[in-house]
């Protein structure tokens, strides 16, 4: 075991180190898929805050993704605003929408919360579809300019447009790293502990002096803001937006990622997005080799999802999921809650 484990550790480390160099060795397609994985990893990490940390089932996460994407699309296409200006703006707008959605749902629990989030997203998508004056509706927004780095505002005539997949790859890597580090820091902070306390036992958490309203609202804002950031990136990466991109299914997909990876775990969210996005593409490549037509791709996809949950109900990587349960922090928290209750 130890021998194996060392080998695996080295392999894993090598993989991690090699990851930034992926564009050098592989084709545009692989890089594109890798970027897609990272966009979903960011979404998954953002969504994870609600069902993972606070035990609130959010079925409408894609709404914030859409709000971010359309903010970026409209501002950059119609008003020529730079990506770097849009991102903070869109994140703020997303967070605001998150709070607006969250405020009336604070007293809802369980599946009633879930269905309201779902209804909210449907309304967002309908807004994007029907307010043609703003979003061009189903005609979509073609020709969104790519991300650019420019020094023109300093008076220096230098400009770099992101015209291939490679710069986006590094931008996505950067975005993912920022969100990852932020999530890890938050998990370890008073905020993260409060969220976990709410998840474990809202009543006890409240009695320990955790203000449920405040902390849940922060969770809504944070989660929505991360989704909007991913949306901004998506808009200027794909250069085309249509309301169809933000349909209900996407919310499910992201939810599947965090459950599959191990609910409530930051690494798990990333692993889940790697698995589900890669699975779709792997099946695309592999199935024809077995003589199966392209039509069977989602048949296999559904089947594999069932099988994973059947044999790994705790997620594909229960060890990852379990790490959060093993952490000293949480054990202490649980002990404290227990003491609070009995005492």
């Amino acid at each position, binding site marked *: 075991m130890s021998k194996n484990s060392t080998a695996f550790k080295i392999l894993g480390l090598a993989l991690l180190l090699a990851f930034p160099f992926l564009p050098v060795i592989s084709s545009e397609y692989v890089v594109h898929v890798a970027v897609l994985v990272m966009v979903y990893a960011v979404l998954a990490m953002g969504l994870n805050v609600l*069902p993972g940390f606070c035990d609130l*089932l959010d079925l409408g996460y894609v709404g914030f993704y859409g709000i971010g994407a359309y903010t970026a699309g409209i501002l950059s296409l119609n008003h020529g605003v730079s990506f770097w200006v849009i991102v903070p703006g869109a994140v703020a707008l997303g967070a605001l929408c998150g709070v607006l959605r969250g405020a*009336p*749902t604070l*007293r*809802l*629990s*369980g*599946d*009633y919360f*879930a*269905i*309201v989030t*779902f*209804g*909210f997203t*449907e*309304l967002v998508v*309908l807004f994007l*579809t*029907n307010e043609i004056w703003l979003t061009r509706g189903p005609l979509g927004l073609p020709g969104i300019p790519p991300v650019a780095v420019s020094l023109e505002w300093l008076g220096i005539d230098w400009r770099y447009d992101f015209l291939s997949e490679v710069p986006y790859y590094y931008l996505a890597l950067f975005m993912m790293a920022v969100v990852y580090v932020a999530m890890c820091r938050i998990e370890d902070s008073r905020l993260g502990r409060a969220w976990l306390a709410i998840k474990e*036992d*809202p*009543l*006890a958490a409240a009695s320990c002096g955790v203000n449920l309203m405040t902390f849940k609202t922060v969770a809504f804002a944070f989660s929505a803001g991360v989704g909007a950031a991913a949306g901004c990136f998506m808009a200027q990466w794909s250069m085309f937006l249509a309301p169809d991109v933000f349909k*209900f299914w996407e919310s*499910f997909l992201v*939810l*599947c990622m965090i*459950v*599959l990876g191990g*609910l409530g775990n930051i690494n798990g969210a990333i692993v889940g997005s790697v698995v589900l996005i890669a699975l779709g593409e792997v099946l695309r490549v592999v199935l024809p080799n077995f003589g199966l037509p392209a*039509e*069977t791709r*989602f*048949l296999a*996809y*559904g*089947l*594999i*999802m*069932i099988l994973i*949950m*059947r044999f790994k*109900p*705790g*997620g594909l990587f229960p060890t990852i999921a379990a790490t959060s349960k093993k952490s000293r922090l949480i054990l202490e928290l649980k002990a404290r809650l227990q003491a609070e209750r009995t005492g």
Partner: protein
Amino acid sequence: MFEQQLFNGLTLGLIYALIAVGYTMVYGVIELINFAHGEIYMLGAFLCITFIQALGIPLFPAIALSMACCAAIGVFIDRIAYKPLRKAPRLAALITAIGVSIFLQNIAMIIWGSRPVPFVRAAVPKVFGETVFTLGSVNVSGLQLFIYAVTTAMMVGLTLIINKTKVGTAMRALAQNPVSAALMGINVDRVISFTFALGSSLGAVAGILVGMYYNTISATMGYNAGVKAFAAAVLGGIGSVPGAMLGGVVLGVAETLGAGYVSSQYRDGLGYAVMIAVILLRPSGLLGKSVGQKA
């Protein structure tokens, strides 16, 4: 025109209600949002026309056979996919349900093709297509009467089963407290299977009625209907059977009146807006029991 719109809404709502009942019963018993239920509804319709076309069975026996098959499929899915996850985290079963839904939709697409198929016209009694009587400005067709009769009969039957029979009592006991129910000697697995069978056969009937009424069946029809019915079930108070019926009708009427008088672009949105408003005002749905914060 208003009567006509109200009437349209009622027909649509009753169909939603019939599907919503399946969601709500399963939820009541095992707290699972069975997203594959919409696919059962689709399979019901396809199986029915297959029995009529391939085996030459008349309409009504074909409906019965299709109900039986869907009941079996429902039980089978539960045994294979959900049962092993009873003790797993709740979301695991939810994801499995999504997986089952994807799987069934794609297998139907492979078996019956991806284009919409008309219902077998020849098998449908002639009177169904005709206007039976006129009520004010509303024309009522034989098929609409049939839909009303069938849905009402199903609902009454279901209420009787739940309230008057032994298995119905067991279902209610299970919904309240599965552990105590098991201790009282209730065969939990059998009751759950029965619930799936009952819900799935109602879903099949809904699929067949929709297929006949709109004269179209497609492999992707379960998705939209499933989502609407799910919304209806929650609106009425998930876990409550009368709630699901009421929720379906409210949703259908809201949608229809919304499309007729407010904006056809925001048709679905109005249904959802009503749903959100109801839930915000009554956090456990129209007829749901207040569950409170689960500690």
